[in-house]
């Protein structure tokens, strides 16, 4: 199980979502966030004054996936979020210790769900 965190441009969210849906990844948590990368933001002109905008509007997408979904999820996020310009964002992949579905108290890959290979094996058993 992995926990994937992606920071992307807000205006690319619809594209990322669409790309994820195409890979049958529907579960996600989305937050409006602000942040800066290596460039520390950029200068913009406002009412004739130059303002260094440091923390830029971004969107954080968090997705818990079973191992067989990791690659396709990452690929989908890149496909949806990339413009090729500075500021496209980053993807972090974290090991996930456990996942518990509150309603059923089931845990692990079953709780994450989805039509993953791991889950199919469990169901077969």
């Amino acid at each position, binding site marked *: 199980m992995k926990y994937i965190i992606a920071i992307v441009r*807000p*205006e*690319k*969210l*619809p594209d990322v979502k669409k790309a994820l849906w195409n890979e049958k990844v529907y579960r996600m948590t*989305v937050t*409006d966030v602000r942040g800066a990368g290596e460039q520390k933001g950029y200068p*913009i*002109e*406002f009412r004739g004054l130059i303002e260094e905008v440091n923390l830029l*509007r971004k*969107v954080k997408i968090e997705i818990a996936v079973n191992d067989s979904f990791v690659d396709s999820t990452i690929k989908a996020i890149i496909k949806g979020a990339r*413009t090729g310009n500075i500021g496209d964002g980053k993807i972090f992949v974290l090991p996930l210790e456990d996942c518990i579905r509150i309603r059923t108290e089931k845990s692990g890959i079953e709780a994450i769900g989805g039509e993953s290979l791991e889950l199919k094996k469990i169901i077969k058993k």
Partner: protein
Amino acid sequence: MKLKAIISIILSIIFSISLVLAYEATPENNAKSIDFVWTLIAAFLVFIMQAGFAMVETGFTRAKNAGNIMMKNLIDFCFGAVAFWAIGYAIMFGAGNLFFGTEGFFLSSANNGSDLWQYAYWMFQVVFAATAATIVSGAVAERIKFSGYIFYSIFISALVYPVVGHWIWGGGWLAKLSTPMIDFAGSTVVHSVGGWAALAGTIILGPRIGKYMNNNSVKPIRGHSLTLAALGVFLLWFGWYGFNPGSTVAGTNWSIATIAVTTTLGASAGAIGSLLTSWIRYKKPDVSLTLGGTLGGLVAITAGTANVSPLSSIIIGLIAGILYVFSVSFFDRIKIDDPVGAVSCHAINGVWGTLAVGLFAQKEFGGINGLFFGGGISQLVSQFIGVISVFIWTFVIMLIFFKIIDLIIGLRVSREEELKGLDLSEHNTEAYADFPISATNN
């Protein structure tokens, strides 16, 4: 004392102050003053409708475009006022032929120094022209290019609106039919013109990103503030007391009282109509549809406000409110994305209100009987001719105009700009810099 007199004479020579004719307090002059004051106050009331439109439109659209909507509502008035001063007013009210006026450009018909009535009258007319222009802003919101919108606002105020105004109010062919068309305060002249132009704009622009899914489903795109939208509706309603009763352009005309009553009842019935329709159709009394239906009632009563009884105004408003709800879902279904329901409110109810004069007019109020009060069908026919001809003129010329703008400078912002929001992409600013703006409402 002598010195003072000399100084004032010198000053008046230097600044060529044309001392307005000394006011003689005759009964005639006093009556005229009442007309001046009434017309100007009404004009100022109609001006507040600009704020009303701005609030309604921004309330029904997303926060990322709020600054852009403010700019459009401010700037269409400003460019429109200059264009109407230079060209529009002459085309609308200048002497000319049956189709447009050809005299009085640059407000040259006004007479400095003596009778200043033309100034008061221009003031009343310019706020009407601006109302027609700003209706479109809501329908094309969240995706039109700001520069293209400026060209549009000049075009409609200088040409499209004044031509219709000339036909109906400026002694043109619709006013010279054997049974003249009646459009007292502008259900057709102002609201249908704005509404049809809005329809043309949305058709050329296409729907907003995210409104229609691949599987043909329609997604509602929620506005960012029902509170602001409601404030806008109240401001518009308040301004409408200048719009309708003010259209007597005479405070000495006592029918301003009945007009105020029919205006109030039309709006109230419009709200009730849309409230009940949405309640029955969608199981809950919908806030935004009720707000829109209120405006629909106001639009519909505008044509016949001086010609119908209070009871008739309730029927007209009620039907307008019902029409509004069905019209909004109709345009959604045929993939015409009108974020604020401007076409349903102004075009559809403008048509209904104009036709309603031919049905509900009563001699006791406006001197003419409609079909339901024994006046025969001739008035209804004239109304119908007016509605159709104004639709053809406005819709066709605006369709061509928006297409030309689209080909020359592009009418719509890029996909990235639209998703980012027009505040950032068009104006390099944010309307709510201190607040997080949700990207998840895209």
